[in-house]
């Protein structure tokens, strides 16, 4: 195997680069707001109900949202570092996803009790927490539940805080067995597996709220510009990822075709299979594709959009590459166009970017099935959020699980018959 120049220090290099992006977010926050505005904004972010869609750019300010995101990423990195985990694809995708969603729905407070719940689960099972760290990070999809109980319910102080912590611990305790069970539902063809699991839990919890006559109401608060400065920050992140490949290793681009030849189905860790240099390069490339799409349709860059971008970028180390994301994105775009939807609306933007949860279908079964998966996702996703009343931040993962579970058995069944003939 070809020896790469950075191989001797790969683990530390990964940490260095991940900390670099977290600190970049924190430092860039001061380009938008003063320290006191950021501090006051953080207080608003922590106390504001987070049911889908609450954009921290709008309810607080851009600086606070960026600061919150960088802080959450550093906190997760510290958890990973403390356990001496080598941050490969699953960990990197989780950190970027949670970092992105820290601009709409997650904050330094509401993610903690869920992560603690998963930690307690690992202790009950007498296992190392490192086995559950990725689940713990993704489980924060349900952090709006914690904030809703703490700040959006009618409970009096201090019972609201106590029940908020208890609800987070409860989510953390039930998520590991459910996540590893539900992954079999779609057999790894939807990358946001915990989005599906959290959707099921959110559906049960929202039903309980409703039957006790406390129905949850989805919110919609989205920043609408201007977005010139924030675009520059995003481009710096994306372009630097591409440049890191040139800095840390050789110009052996013929090996990139190995990466884009993979289906991307869970578990395809590009970091361990193709090296961190190609993984980070690919993260930049998929980020650039999404960013160019947003430029073409002239969409506003705001908290939810960055969450979607960061999620795609993160999964650029764990299953997504240009060959498998483009067909599903195109399928979703075509379906939205045919049905007359506004491509620049926040719902459409998120649908197209998050449709890449189904990238493994295009990766394994080809472009046509990728188009079909993207189209089906676009039609299904808007019909599901009411089931969990916005409690699950990964609503597209919820939809993706259903689409994959519906399509894959049909595709493979006809493929097998064709092979048998």
């Amino acid at each position, binding site marked *: 195997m070809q020896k790469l120049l950075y191989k001797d220090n790969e683990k530390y290099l990964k940490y260095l680069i991940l900390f670099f992006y977290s600190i970049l977010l924190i430092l860039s926050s001061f380009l938008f707001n003063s320290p006191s505005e950021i501090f006051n904004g953080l207080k608003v972010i922590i106390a504001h109900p987070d049911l889908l869609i609450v954009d921290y750019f709008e309810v607080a300010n851009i600086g606070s949202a960026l600061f919150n995101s960088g802080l959450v990423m550093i906190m997760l990195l510290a958890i990973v570092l403390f356990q001496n985990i080598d941050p490969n694809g699953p960990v990197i995708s989780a950190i970027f996803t949670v970092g992105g969603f820290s601009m709409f729905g997650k904050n330094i407070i509401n993610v903690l009790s869920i992560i603690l719940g998963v930690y307690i689960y690992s202790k009950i099972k007498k296992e190392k927490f490192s*086995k559950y760290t990725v689940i713990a990070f993704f489980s924060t999809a349900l952090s709006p539940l914690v904030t809703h109980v703490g700040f959006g319910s009618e409970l009096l102080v201090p019972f609201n805080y106590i029940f908020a912590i208890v609800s987070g611990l409860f989510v953390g305790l039930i998520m590991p067995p459910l*996540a*590893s069970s539900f992954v079999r539902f779609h*057999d790894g063809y939807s990358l946001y597996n915990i989005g599906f699991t959290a959707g099921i839990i959110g559906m049960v919890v929202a039903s309980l709220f409703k039957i006790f006559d406390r129905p949850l109401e989805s919110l919609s608060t989205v920043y609408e510009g201007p977005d010139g400065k924030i675009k520059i920050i995003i481009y710096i992140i994306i372009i630097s990822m591409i440049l890191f490949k040139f800095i840390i290793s050789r110009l052996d681009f013929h090996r990139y075709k190995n990466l884009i030849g993979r289906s991307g189905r869970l*578990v*395809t*860790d590009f970091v*361990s299979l193709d090296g961190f240099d190609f993984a980070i390069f690919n993260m930049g490339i998929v980020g650039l594709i999404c960013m160019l799409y947003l430029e073409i349709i002239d969409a506003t860059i705001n908290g939810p959009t960055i969450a979607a971008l960061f999620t795609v970028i993160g999964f650029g180390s764990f299953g997504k590459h240009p060959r498998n994301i483009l067909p599903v994105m195109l399928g979703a775009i075509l379906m939205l166009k045919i049905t007359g939807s506004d491509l620049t609306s926040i719902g459409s933007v998120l649908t197209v970017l998050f449709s890449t949860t189904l990238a493994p279908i295009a990766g394994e079964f080809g472009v046509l099935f990728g188009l079909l998966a993207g189209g089906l996702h676009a039609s299904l996703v808007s019909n599901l959020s009411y089931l969990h009343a916005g409690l699950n931040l990964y609503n597209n993962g919820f939809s993706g699980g259903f689409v994959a579970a519906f399509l894959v058995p049909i595709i493979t069944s006809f493929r097998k018959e064709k092979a048998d003939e």
Partner: protein
Amino acid sequence: MNKNELIMIKIMNELVHIYLNHGCNNVNINLVFDENKGMVELQGAVKNIDESVLNKLKMSLNTPRRDDTEEYYWGLLGSDYSSQLNLLDAMVDEGQLNYDNGILTLKVIRRF
């Protein structure tokens, strides 16, 4: 049946897939458990297996085990649709491959 036994059965299923996908119709399996580990050894006649497949398999079986993926994704091992060698390699501690006179022997060990 405990979880470690379930995981060993899924590892065995994944390895059986390899034989069946390469035209073998008679696989001998030896599955052994003790207090600290599980071991599965498979043997069968496999004709015309490509050298690159053997190399890929050998590399997969000797990739270091990883804790961070197994708890979340172990259910995907032995799936109906396609192979999960990438996952298998993260879940076993040791692996051996021998291909001699058309007989493929695979042996993997997973410590509990």
